[in-house]
């Protein structure tokens, strides 16, 4: 296994999985019988049964993994690959069917999209319960409640039932609780759903700070920006089996190869990894949209997607993508990569620019595309700037807030040109050669 290659014998081990497998049943009508049998088996001192009963399958098979202190390990895979099962095992919610799991800390906290809040209880009651569940002493709880409420900006709603909160408020409260726990190991299952852009950036910033301060993390996420930015290594799971454990780029490449084989959507990928700053949200609709104030060394302040005449974009015609950037100080060499996607299909097309030296405060990068060979419709554009000297991403746009632009039908519309059955117009030369003069003549 590649896993062994990554092991640093001097590192402080935090979590170790050896040959872990997990069996699940797909037959709910058998769950009482199976649970009783497993409980009785354990009461008799026997190990878990190794075979499969009728309707059972291996959700995970022979997984070896370790996480050391200060390490961030990602787990990727398609739905049903076994990512959540792996986190449930590490969180000690369930037991492995084979193998063993060793934890070197009891300060482990799991974040999942399902949330931890009970809707019937107030925010204050939820905080109290969660702090108690995570071992915070009772005498510290009241002080923590005020701090959490302030952090979540929910002081006024703290004594209202969580059912009356918006999804964003719930996300903020859940996140604020997690942020105060400061565990040795965070288990993150798809991050926190809901919340506005500001909150997402805050969550992302918190995770980045936690990692920068030596926190450890095992996380399952489809956000490749976060995976590539944060992870020291990534395990790719498929059908419950470890396909590869490698650096993030290699693992995402392997994921995309698997996706291509099965006709599934790929994950967007960039070719270098390094620290990042969350980029502001962009929405373009064939026009320029102002973005949030610049916060990093080089910030995108404006994006314009235009047609050849500077206005509407038409399928099959030239297009220009203009990116206005602002340099905070000094100078840098950067490469700009543009990714165009549509719905779940990402990336649909990429354009990578040459290395450019940026020395003046304001600069506009202009990408001219000879023929935008995409069928009419709504698309998303994503800009990534890579610092070639520091080998790190300068700007990343949030995965969930892609900008959009529209491609109009061709100006000179011809029958059958509506782009049915595909996304891309292929430029082709056609030949016609008759093989049967008689039939042609008839």
């Amino acid at each position, binding site marked *: 296994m590649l896993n062994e290659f990554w092991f640093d014998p001097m590192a402080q081990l935090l979590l170790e999985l050896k040959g872990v497998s997990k069996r699940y049943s797909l037959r709910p009508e058998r769950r009482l019988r199976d649970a009783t049998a497993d409980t009785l088996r354990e009461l008799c*001192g026997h190990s878990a049964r190794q075979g499969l009963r009728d309707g059972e399958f291996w959700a995970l098979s022979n997984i070896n993994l370790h996480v050391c202190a200060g390490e961030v390990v990602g787990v990727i895979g398609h739905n049903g690959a076994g990512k959540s099962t792996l986190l449930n095992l590490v969180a000690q*919610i369930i037991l492995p069917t084979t193998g063993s799991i060793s934890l070197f800390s009891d300060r482990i906290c799991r974040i999942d999209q399902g949330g931890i809040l009970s809707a019937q209880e107030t925010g204050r009651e939820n905080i109290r319960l969660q702090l108690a569940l995570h071992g915070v002493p009772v005498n510290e709880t009241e002080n923590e409640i005020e701090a959490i409420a302030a952090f979540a900006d929910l002081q006024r709603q703290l004594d209202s039932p969580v059912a009356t909160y918006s999804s964003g408020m719930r996300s903020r409260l859940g996140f604020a609780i997690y942020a105060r726990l400061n565990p040795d190991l965070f288990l993150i299952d798809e991050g926190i759903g809901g919340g506005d852009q500001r909150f997402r950036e805050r969550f992302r910033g918190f995770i980045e700070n936690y990692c920068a301060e030596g926190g450890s993390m095992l996380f399952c996420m489809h956000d490749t920006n976060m995976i590539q930015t944060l992870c020291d290594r990534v395990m790719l799971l498929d059908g419950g089996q470890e396909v590869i454990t490698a650096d993030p780029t290699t693992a995402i490449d392997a994921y995309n190869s698997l996706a291509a084989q099965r006709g599934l959507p790929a994950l967007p990928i960039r070719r270098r990894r390094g620290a990042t700053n969350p980029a502001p949200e962009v929405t373009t609709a064939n026009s320029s949209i102002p973005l949030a104030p610049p916060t990093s060394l080089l910030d995108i302040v404006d994006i314009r997607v235009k047609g050849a005449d500077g206005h509407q974009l038409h399928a099959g015609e030239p297009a220009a993508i203009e990116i206005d950037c602002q340099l905070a100080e000094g100078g840098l060499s950067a490469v700009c990569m543009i990714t165009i996607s549509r719905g779940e299909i990402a990336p649909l097309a990429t354009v990578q620019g040459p290395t450019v030296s940026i020395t003046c405060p304001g600069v506009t990068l202009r990408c001219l595309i000879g023929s935008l060979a995409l069928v009419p419709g709504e698309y998303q554009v994503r800009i990534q700037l890579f610092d070639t000297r520091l080998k790190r991403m300068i700007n990343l746009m949030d995965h969930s807030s892609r900008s959009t632009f529209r491609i109009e039908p061709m100006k000179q519309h011809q029958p059958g040109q509506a782009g049915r059955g595909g996304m891309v117009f292929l430029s082709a030369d056609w030949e016609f050669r008759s093989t049967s003069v008689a039939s042609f003549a008839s």
Partner: protein
Amino acid sequence: MADLPHFPVSRYSSASRLSDPAQFLREWKRDIFASPRIGWRLFQRGLIHQYRHSSLGIFLVFAPVLIAALLFTFGRHSNLLAAEIGGVNSAFFGACGMLMGQSFLEALNSTKRLFANNQFLFRRQNLPVEGPLLAIVIDLVFRLLIRLLVLALLMGLFSIHPVPTAPIAAWGLLGISLAGAGLGLIAAAPSCLQQDLTVLASILPLVLFTVTPVFGVPAPASLLGRIQSVNPLTWLFQGIRAAAYGGSGSVVAAAIGPVVGILLVLLGWFICRIARPHVVERILV
């Protein structure tokens, strides 16, 4: 980041947790010490769930006893019921039986729902069963104290004079709750995974009130009398009555009843502890 140990603080595998009894007991002890703060919070949560949307609130704890007393008084005055049962006012006998029956059923039902009521937490966190169990125990003790007050009130109301063994009656009443809790814990895992037990639970009061001397004492030679004589709860119920105001039962039964109840609770607790991951695994998918 705190200093981390060089040896695992917890290790779990496919091997039975009972294969290393010392480790099993260490982890059990750790969970017991961690449970008070969780148990207290879950108790408060349960209290809120019960009473936030209820106008009657705590009245519901003793309302069935008072209603039973009223109905029996009405029946007695209408000559539908005997004036006395077991040597005391029949209304008091019925109210007392209701109080004991309710204690048993509440303990049974609340522990039976140990997994079902806390699925939300069990599915997301490594929640030891001791936390919710302690919350149930606190709730049962709270209800028991209220019932003891109600019992004292009824004794005063019906001019029933307590005998010197009355403290044993309180101890016996605890035994009824413990017996119910123990049986409920044994049934907790199956009832979370199968609806049949929930359906059966709805007819359990009827069965209990028939095979236990709750509202009356049948002739010993009758079929019901013979059935009741082999029901351990009959000994406990009659023993508590004998300990409280004197009667035909054995005070010894009231004295040893809680010991049996404690053993049942320990057995149920142990089963729940072993069954937890196997149950949670089945409610996850």
